[in-house]
């Protein structure tokens, strides 16, 4: 028996926003009947805000729960914010999923990504009209039809380190297992590239300059929207010392804000070893 969280149980027992939006502005889908889970998501978008979302899911308890909570997460949110949602956010909102079930949250993320890919403010392209471009996307796992890009994304978003983890998140390698070697190659390539990029490109001075630029151009404008701001005090090795001002400082969520937003932004842009420390 799976050890599902209360949240997952609540959502598969009483799924929210089930159904179809006939005049949807964006529609996305992921999975297939043959693979054992499939999800369609319908969005209504007005003035850049998701005003309604509905879903239809063929899948297990955690697939339904992932879809259901995803609709709750995006209704009322601006499109830019919705675009930032990853499978990890879905799993976190559900208070965690069993490792073997992480691919359910990935399916939610992929359906959402698919919907937004087809959406432009000028007009939405209906699901039936979409002609998927004949991309040269390389399929790694032919049993579950998982592409190299999907595996790469999952590794990046969830810091996956082993083939087993990749299988849990994407299903790739979960059937005949012939692609396990190829998956290992992708993992190796991903981490080697990351390492070489870090080592070869940044001197200490360049690193400080880059951190400063990210803070000024990306982080500070976001914080100012909420009436706060950030100043870079010092960079000590991988420790980034910052001072928060205005609404951000002293607010209960400041610790969370630092971790979730500043740190991720800096890690993504500069180095995954960075640690953000708030000073007074």
């Amino acid at each position, binding site marked *: 028996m799976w050890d599902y969280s209360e949240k997952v149980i609540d959502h598969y027992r009483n799924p929210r926003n089930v159904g179809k939006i006939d005049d949807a502005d964006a529609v996305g889908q992921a999975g297939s*009947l043959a693979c*054992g889970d499939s999800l369609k998501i319908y969005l209504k978008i007005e003035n850049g805000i998701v005003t309604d979302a509905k879903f239809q899911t063929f899948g*297990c308890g955690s697939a339904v729960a992932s879809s259901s909570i995803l609709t709750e997460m995006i209704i009322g949110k601006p499109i830019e914010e919705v675009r930032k949602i990853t499978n990890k956010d879905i799993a976190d909102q559900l208070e965690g999923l069993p490792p073997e079930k992480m691919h359910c949250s990935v399916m939610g993320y992929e359906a959402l990504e698919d919907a937004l890919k087809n959406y432009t403010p000028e007009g939405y392209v209906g699901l039936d009209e979409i002609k998927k471009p004949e991309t040269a996307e390389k399929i790694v796992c032919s049993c579950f039809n998982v592409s190299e890009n999907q595996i790469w994304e999952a590794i990046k978003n969830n810091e996956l380190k082993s083939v087993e983890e990749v299988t849990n998140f994407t299903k790739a390698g979960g059937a005949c297992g012939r692609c396990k070697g190829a998956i290992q190659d992708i993992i190796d390539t991903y981490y080697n590239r990351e390492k070489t990029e870090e080592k070869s490109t940044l001197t200490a001075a360049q690193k400080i300059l880059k951190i400063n630029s990210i803070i000024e151009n990306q982080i500070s404008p976001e914080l100012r929207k909420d009436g706060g701001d950030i100043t870079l005090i010092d960079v000590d090795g991988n420790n980034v010392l910052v001072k928060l001002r205005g609404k951000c400082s002293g607010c209960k969520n400041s610790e969370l804000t630092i971790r979730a937003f500043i740190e991720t932004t800096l890690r993504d842009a500069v180095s995954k070893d960075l640690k953000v420390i708030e000073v007074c």
Partner: protein
Amino acid sequence: MDKIIYLDNNATTKVDEQVLEAMLPFLKEEYANPSSIYDFAKTPAKAINKARGQVKDFLNAESEKQIIFTASGSESANMAIRGVLNSNKSKKRIITSKVEHPCVLNLFQALEKEGYKIDYINVNSKGELDLAQLEESIDYDTALISIMHANNETGVIFPIEEISEIIKCKNPETKFHVDAVQTAGKIPLDVKSLGVDLLTISGHKFHAPKGIGVLYVNPRTVITPLIIGGHQERGKRAGTENVPYIIGIGRAAEIATDNLKYEATEVKRLRDKLEANILKSVFNSRLNTGMINRVPNTSNIGFEYIEGELILLHLSDLGICASSGSACTSGSLEPSHVLRAMNVPFTSIHGSIRFSLSKYTTEEEIDYVSDNIPSIIEKLTNLSPFQDELEALRKLKS
């Protein structure tokens, strides 16, 4: 939800009160090692002999010497297969079916790596074995054939007598092992009329506790032991006898023999009723096997365009226990190898549910399940993204 409606008896069964009663003295005061010489050891030693006799009668074996107690069905099957292969290492071919239990299939995969050549016999869409393919596969080099008596997921019974005739005709030296874990206690078992060389059963499938199995080996078959040590089980399986559990499986075998008529009539009637009710009231349900020769307690029903784990979770909320051939339930990502071998369509393979009854299943329970399934399935059908396909199916059925 306090009440449990247990319809997963092919997974395991409730221990019979009379079995427990027979076992208890051997967990309490009668704790002597049956191999010891003093009088205190006589009661357990005699009790084991009695249990061996009960199992001998249950299987209609030649004598008590043919009965080896083990710790599980998996151990019995491993002992049978490895025991036969190791006693004659010159032969390198094995035949089995695609729908065997994982304890047999996974062992064969290991043996393939050790240099054995395995033929996997197909089944048709009803789950029946391809006997022509089986016959063709037998040659002078075939050391062993291992076939299950009935399939655990579908309940389909394989024609063991017929297979054993084919083997005797094509290569009488080939040994024949039958995994009868799913038939013991459900239909009569007679090793002589079945014509088998080795036969595996497991106690917890017929109301003995988990942790006790039996391997029957006929007098003409030699096996090398897996576990080497003391002289127990005539040197075929070392280790101090698990006295209480041996007493348990003996008593359970005796009770099961008396209960076979009830299985064939009453359990079958309730199974058929449940099956008919579901197929009648749920438009997107289908019987995965068809109405063919099955053990009386098992029904495997596919619910189209719905996923099985989700059905089980909703059944569980009502206290109903069943199991599924869906991928998600097991965490294996792939749906049941049995249903795939039968070519069950993808529309229903992921939504396949196995209901397996026992002598403890009541009419009220079957009525309760029959009454509640339609609304659960309807709720989950509404979640499905395949509404157009479902609508077409609804029209087709009406």
